[in-house]
């Protein structure tokens, strides 16, 4: 697969409502990834890295930091649009992502609008496991050139 050209500017006319972003497929979530993310993010909550702690708290196992899933959606966006054009990025965490799950990030263009003198596109996104169970829903506003 060729690497997307992130320096390419999106324009109002080149983007259509309903367009889909190239999906981002992650490998099965590993404990090693959770340990790395704990260190990289500074979120050392033991629920994400210590199975004994998670079980004592009534969970079946450790699970992904919500912000790790949001970072994957960030990759989905910046694979498609230059990061400097990103104006707003929000997510709602709806279900837990467990070790071993194979997550796919998807996005599509939901709207084109004008705000604060800029032309923006609104993208809606999800992360979901191999069964299609949605874990996160997200939304982003990206500035595009009018022409």
């Amino acid at each position, binding site marked *: 697969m060729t690497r997307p050209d992130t320096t390419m500017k999106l324009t109002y006319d080149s983007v259509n409502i309903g367009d889909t972003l190239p999906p981002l497929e992650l490998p099965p979530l590993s404990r090693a990834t959770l340990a790395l*993310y704990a260190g990289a993010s500074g979120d050392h909550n033991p*629920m994400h890295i210590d199975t004994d702690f998670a079980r004592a708290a009534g969970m079946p196992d450790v699970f992904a930091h919500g*912000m*790790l899933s*949001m*970072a994957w959606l960030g990759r989905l966006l910046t694979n498609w649009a230059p990061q*400097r054009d990103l104006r*707003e990025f929000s997510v709602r*965490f709806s279900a837990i992502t467990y070790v071993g799950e194979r997550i796919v990030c998807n996005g599509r263009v939901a709207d084109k609008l004008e705000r604060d003198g800029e032309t923006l596109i609104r993208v809606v996104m999800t992360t979901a496991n191999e069964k299609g169970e949605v874990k996160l829903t997200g939304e982003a506003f990206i500035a595009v050139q009018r022409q």
Partner: protein
Amino acid sequence: MLDQKLIGHRFPTHSAVVEAGRLRLFAKATGETRPEYVDEHAARAAGHPSLPAPPTFSACLYLDHSDIFGWLGGLGVDVSRILHGSQSFRYFAQVYAGDRLTFSSRIEDVLSKRGGALVFIVRETDVDNQAGVRVAEVRSTIIVKGK
């Protein structure tokens, strides 16, 4: 007690430098391999002054210093009852390795739902760089489950 008296609580302002090594670890943890996010020469060749911080990275640097888990723990909340409900970013300028960011964080809202079974705590953080430029505003909603 988790009630509306907490609205307006301000966390101590703090500053932190965006380190290139921390950005590379964040890239590794999130599966980001594109050269402009891990290699400073590639970043400059792509038109950046240094490594760009990915969209959700700034949330990590305030986690290091103004620990909401510790703060809630101090209020008697069991950390295993805390869930991350939602997260949003508004972006005004790109953050790069070498930037010094200043974080000003406050409790914006406290909402009790389902008769107190869930308490939503909304925290708002302003992020400014070393030039005094506002780079982002970050909103985080933490949900505390009742007993």
